[in-house]
């Protein structure tokens, strides 16, 4: 009996050992979704796993809030996932893994992602490769053209100013009964582009300086629009603190004439609105200094704490490879950060004229981006500026303080934030 048991045990061990020897290395990616990109990424990664049986990629799809609020804690406490999809690109850059030495073809990355590589680099680093942009975004307006047609008012032209758009949107809302002429996501990042168009510089040399004359012009406009009904308090006024509030649902319900958000909304609107009404992106409204939005996007970064840096780099190398990268963007309708693909053009899988028109407008808006917008986006501590803007402007809109006081508080909040972050 004892011999039998021993043989069974040995047979069991013998069966398990080869499996253990070939057990795949697990790479975990913390991933959030704007649209269908999680589904597309999973499909692409399934192909990677089939070709690389030694690596298993787990895609942990989480709410966006987890990326902005919980991930930084995990990273700080050494519990980071191997890879994460982030939007605060430089926020924890000192914790990112330099992929450069691990990549198959470093030159390919340097050539095609040159413009965006600095966005994920830690301060002082000018050569490392720390992230792969999965999506390039540009903030821009999306209009409900059906409402313009119903009102018999033509769409303002491509060089129309913010003030001209406001007058037109308000007139359309009055004629059609749409409750919200203009809606803007409640986010400092969203406000930054229009402020730059009005002449805001956001920096004094290399020192962050939020409040200047251009900035005051745009914040005053937003403040006034909330008072005269051009903008509804439903978006900026309905929550407090730094909380993000989008107006995508209101727009999809046909309640908004002009919605200032960004190109990442296209896949969602293609699904939720479809051709329920005629919607599409348009050129960014102009100010005296520019007609710009803000660039941005999401990037995949690997963390220094990963136990499998080589495997993490292999996964990112695969996702960055031209055919895979092109397919990802074609299926997700994202703008590409890959210079080569941008030059060739991506064959987007979009049949709807609304989406095609929107993608064309987004491409035009990328070309019109101001250098100030790029500089602000590349600044690792930009959220300190954005948060101060959101919180204090919101207080002014809610009637808790004057706009003058709000500007004063924004300046001191930025100074406090930078001091706490150890920025001299």
């Amino acid at each position, binding site marked *: 009996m004892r011999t039998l048991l021993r043989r069974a045990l040995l047979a069991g061990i013998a069966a398990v050992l080869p499996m253990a020897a070939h057990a795949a290395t697990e790479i975990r990616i913390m991933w959030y979704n704007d649209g269908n990109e999680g589904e597309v990424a999973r499909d692409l990664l399934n192909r990677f796993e089939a070709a690389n049986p030694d690596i298993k990629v787990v895609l942990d799809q989480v709410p966006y809030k987890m990326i902005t609020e919980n991930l930084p804690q995990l990273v*700080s406490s050494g519990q980071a996932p191997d890879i994460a999809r982030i939007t605060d690109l430089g*926020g924890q850059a000192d914790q990112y893994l330099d992929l450069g030495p691990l990549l198959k073809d470093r030159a390919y990355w340097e050539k095609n992602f040159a413009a965006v590589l600095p966005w994920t680099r830690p301060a002082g680093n000018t050569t490392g490769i720390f992230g792969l942009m999965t999506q390039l975004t540009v903030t821009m307006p999306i209009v409900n053209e059906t409402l313009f047609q119903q009102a018999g008012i033509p769409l303002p032209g491509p060089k129309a100013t913010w003030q001209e758009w406001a007058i037109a949107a308000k007139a359309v809302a009055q004629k059609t009964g749409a409750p919200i002429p203009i809606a803007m996501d409640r986010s400092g990042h969203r406000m930054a582009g229009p402020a730059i168009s009005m002449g805001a510089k956001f920096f004094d040399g290399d020192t962050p300086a939020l409040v200047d004359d251009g900035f005051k012009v745009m914040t005053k406009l937003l403040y006034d629009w909330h008072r005269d009904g051009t903008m509804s308090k439903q978006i900026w*006024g*309905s*929550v407090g*603190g730094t909380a993000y509030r989008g107006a995508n649902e209101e727009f999809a319900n046909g309640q908004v004439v002009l919605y200032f958000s960004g190109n990442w909304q296209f896949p969602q609107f293609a699904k939720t609105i479809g051709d329920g009404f005629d919607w599409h992106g348009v050129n960014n409204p102009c100010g005296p200094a520019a007609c710009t939005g803000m660039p941005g996007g999401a990037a995949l970064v690997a963390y220094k704490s990963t136990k499998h840096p080589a495997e993490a780099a292999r996964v990112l190398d695969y996702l960055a490879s031209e055919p895979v990268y092109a397919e990802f963007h074609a299926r997700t309708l994202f703008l590409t950060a890959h210079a080569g693909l941008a030059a060739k053009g991506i064959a987007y899988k979009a049949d709807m004229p609304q989406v095609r028109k929107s993608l064309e407008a987004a491409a035009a808006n990328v070309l019109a981006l101001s250098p100030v917008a790029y500089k602000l986006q590349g600044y690792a501590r930009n959220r*300190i500026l954005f948060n101060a803007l959101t919180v204090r402007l919101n207080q002014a809109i809610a009637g*808790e303080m004057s706009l003058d006081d709000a500007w004063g508080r924004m300046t001191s909040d930025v100074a406090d934030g930078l001091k706490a972050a150890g920025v001299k």
Partner: protein
Amino acid sequence: MITTLARLIDAPFDALQRRFGAARMPYVFVAPNLLVFGIFVAAPMILNVWYAITGGTQFMPADRPYVGASNFAELLDCTNHFIPATCKQDRFWRAVANTSWFVAFQVIGLVAISLLTALILNRRMPWRGFFRAVFFYPVLLSPVVVALIWKWILQPDGVLNAIVVGSGGARVPFLLDPGWAFSWTIVVSIWAHMGFYTLILLAGLQAIPADLYEAAEMDGTPHVRVFWRITLPLLMPNMLVVLVLALIRAVQSFDEIFVLTGGGPGTATQYIVQYIYETAFANQTHILGLAATASMLVGGVLLVLTLLQLAASARARGEAGR
């Protein structure tokens, strides 16, 4: 069978008693509880004190530089503490002011409504069991669900506005006007929690001997006098428990209000716990020291309030015993 089971249970305790001696056995019994308390209560409290006296944005305690009382000085730096705009950390003082008003209205409203409900549910009436369950039901709901239900009711296109507009009125900005939003956070909070306090008061009412009411009835005592002279004095121990619990809970209010209003409009419904949460976690720069200091100040205030109420409770018991 039972003897075998008893022996099985006895065996490890016999071994422990032989090892530590009978006099130390009480400590052995409380050790597991103390361990859990130590890990989940005492250690975080000590850590909180460390965060409060250290600065920077680093998460690991060892990486944080010692700054002494500067976080306290920063929070308390005000020209006039009653005017938040004159304070360096004005949002903290706005949150303190909002919380104070919220606590005052919410606790008074909660205790009054819970008492009234308990008095009604204590009477003989048809469907009494059903109504008790109905009033307790919101307590079983997750705070997020509570907030989403009320958001659905109160938003500009919500159920309540549909009724208002349907009746010929104009749309009311229930969550967009600071005054309205503040009032609704009180209503929602009372609605969500009153079932629990009603239950405590109901238990107290049922413990009052029925013969006291019978005697009062035979004497022809008016109902109002019965309430003030019999019900309320004998319910006082339960009322104090309700008051202490409601007060602590009101100061800690966060979840359902955060989902309902996000602290807005402006900072009209931003209460102290939200300030702590946002300072520590929601901003890009995680100012953990300031957040920890704010929680210590709130903890201190809660401790004082609880001690005051316990003293009042002891005095009330002493007077009742005389």
